[in-house]
């Protein structure tokens, strides 16, 4: 059994550590590229959402490198993500790939099927070992996100342009050479120190923009055309409405304090939306209201074309923008998104924000 899994931002780092710890062979899919997307687009239903197309590309590229079992998480609706596994399995079967697909569903009334699945993919390790590996992996998720946050803060402030980007790409190049969670955590700590010591300009007062929207497009840099780095290089401090660590904390941990805070944040946008409609639409609205309250300069929503929950959020956002005088832009991405047009829109949005800020400053 050689395991693989779909890409989603930097989630491959903790997942690799997890399986290393369990002693299960794992193939990390090659970074998402044009080829990945082309493979996925060719065999997926036309109207499927972008993440699924890329997932399929990942699987096939991993299979070429010897993987034979796919592990992915599931959910029980109403977002389409919950049924990815089944449709993907059908497609792969018709394409002639014999793959085992293991879907880790959130347990309903009976947790036994989930536990069985976990045992199956962990090479029947003892439970203490499995739990320890999971805990370490979730620690790595947090550390990786902390590192990303430092870089987001540094990018608009760095003295030498491009230094943060360079550090990041070096990190991504070398991190996969680590084996096991201990090595990984040490490696991340070293890079965090390096990131912290990137020299800053004193006078920098960058624009601050929040990124909200569908989680996959937000955290997978290939899909969002590396928006975090692009905005950073335009001199913007990026705040992320939802991160991989948030997802892990919400769904897989017992961090009650975080859950309470999350609930409080969600309740704050009650007059716009006060129930979960699937996906992360509620978080999108809540984060936008939160960012407007905390004085950010604007918000960008990103969603894959046809994403059902985010379309609802998209139709509510203009109202928030109107009522609070808070700039919001929506970007829809799909397999046809062109980089130049995308860049133009980002630049225009940033220009407008900086003009708005300048005006406010003059009036004051």
């Amino acid at each position, binding site marked *: 059994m050689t395991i693989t899994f779909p890409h989603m931002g930097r989630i491959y780092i903790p997942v690799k550590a997890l399986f290393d710890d369990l002693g299960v062979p794992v193939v990390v899919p090659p970074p998402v590229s044009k080829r990945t997307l082309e493979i996925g687009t060719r065999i997926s*239903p*036309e*109207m*499927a*959402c972008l993440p699924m197309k890329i997932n399929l590309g990942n699987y096939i590229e991993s299979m070429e490198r010897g993987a034979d079992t796919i592990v992915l998480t*599931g959910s*029980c*609706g*109403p*977002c*389409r993500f*919950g*049924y990815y*596994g*089944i*449709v993907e399995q*059908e*497609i792969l079967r*018709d394409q002639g790939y014999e793959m085992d697909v293991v*879907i880790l*569903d959130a347990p*309903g009334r009976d947790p036994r099927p989930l536990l069985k699945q976990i045992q199956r993919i962990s090479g029947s390790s003892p439970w203490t070992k499995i739990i320890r590996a999971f805990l370490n992996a979730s620690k790595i998720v947090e550390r990786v996100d902390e590192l990303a946050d430092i870089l987001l803060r540094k990018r608009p402030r760095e003295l030498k342009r491009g230094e943060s980007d360079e550090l990041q790409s070096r990190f991504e190049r070398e991190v996969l050479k680590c084996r096991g969670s201990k090595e990984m955590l040490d490696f991340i700590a070293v890079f965090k120190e390096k990131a912290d010591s990137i020299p800053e300009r004193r006078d920098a007062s960058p624009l601050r923009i929040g990124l909200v929207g569908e989680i996959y497009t937000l955290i997978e840099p290939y899909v969002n055309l590396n928006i975090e780095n692009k905005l950073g290089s335009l001199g913007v401090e990026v705040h992320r409405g939802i991160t991989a660590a948030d997802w892990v904390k919400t769904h897989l941990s017992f961090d009650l304090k975080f859950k309470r805070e999350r609930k409080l944040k969600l309740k704050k946008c009650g007059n*716009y*939306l006060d*129930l979960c*409609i*699937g*996906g992360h*639409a509620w978080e999108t609205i809540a984060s936008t209201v939160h960012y407007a309250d905390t004085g950010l300069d604007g918000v960008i929503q990103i*969603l894959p*074309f*046809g*994403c*059902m*929950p985010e*379309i*609802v*959020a*998209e*139709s*509510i956002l*203009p*109202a928030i923008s109107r009522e609070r005088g808070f700039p919001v832009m929506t970007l*829809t991405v799909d397999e046809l998104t062109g980089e130049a047009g995308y860049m133009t829109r980002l630049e225009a949005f940033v220009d407008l924000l900086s003009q708005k800020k300048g005006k406010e400053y003059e009036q004051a």
Partner: protein
Amino acid sequence: MKIGIPRALLYSIYFPLWKVFFMELGHEVILSNHTNQEILNNGVKICVDDACLPIKIFHGHVTDLIGRVDAILIPRLISIRPEEYICPKFIGLPEMIRYSVPGSPELLVMDYNAYSSEEKGYEGMYRLGRELGSPHSSVKHALNKAGLRQAAYFREMEKGFHPMEIMKRMNHPSERYNTWYKDSFCTNAGLPSKMSAKNSKGTIGLIGHPYLLYDRYINMNICNKLAARGYKIRFPENSTQEKVDGACSRYPKKLFWSYGKRLLGAGLSMMESREISGLILLTSFGCGIDAFIDELLIRANHREFGIPLTTITLDEHTGQAGFDTRLEAFIDMMEWRSRYDNHISPHGAHLYSGQGPV
């Protein structure tokens, strides 16, 4: 109070429930017009671009009611069966309307959430009834009566009737809601007169969401067009829930979309029974659920059944002529296949056996 009900989305399925409920509470119910070009245009104009056609049309129906009513009913159908959903957009519908339709009157948001149990589903209706100022007993009574009506309606559909036919059959003089039934449905959806004809050429399965199948304007009158070619039609609503559940059990994970499940289950059971000579998948552009459901249906058909199948996608740009051409081509293909498929020419290449060599 004059309550407006938009004649869109799941109106065609739930109108007995909604209508009887509000009438029993002593309110006047006013329906939006049948879908027409103006409603479509208005909907497309005010709705976000990314939304699907039925959602845009719902927006149009809401604008159609503005100025004619005191309040507009916006159903929030979260879940209609335990542990299932419909679609995220249905859940967020009241918010979509509130923030994008300008100048709308009071919106009566009616929750329907049967996620934990069937009975719980009616709690939202009860709450709304009380908010409208009716006492506990009369709301309960109205709910009861409306629920019975709805159940009768579902039973009739499972027997194999088209909603319009059911309305016709319910045409007893003693019926209090008769005039409304006739007005609300029969006239628009285009009941194909030949649908139950005995000398039909066969049956075509029509798989799609109710808001596409039972709205003549959106679906370009497909029912009548098929009937005119001599075919009977089977709708997903004609399958019993047990059949749907049974057919879907071939997939290892429970489907959590009620309509997705119905479409898939009904499609599979139609194919398994070999009752149909062809299957048409009617979908609206950008429908997230159909993207998956149709994919599963097509793959299952390709692998096991080999029944003629086509997908027709509808959106606000769909032209009548292109639609007709595709429909005709499909029916021709289906008929030629049954006529010539087994004729193998002993003399080499023939297009089909009725003609000479090509």
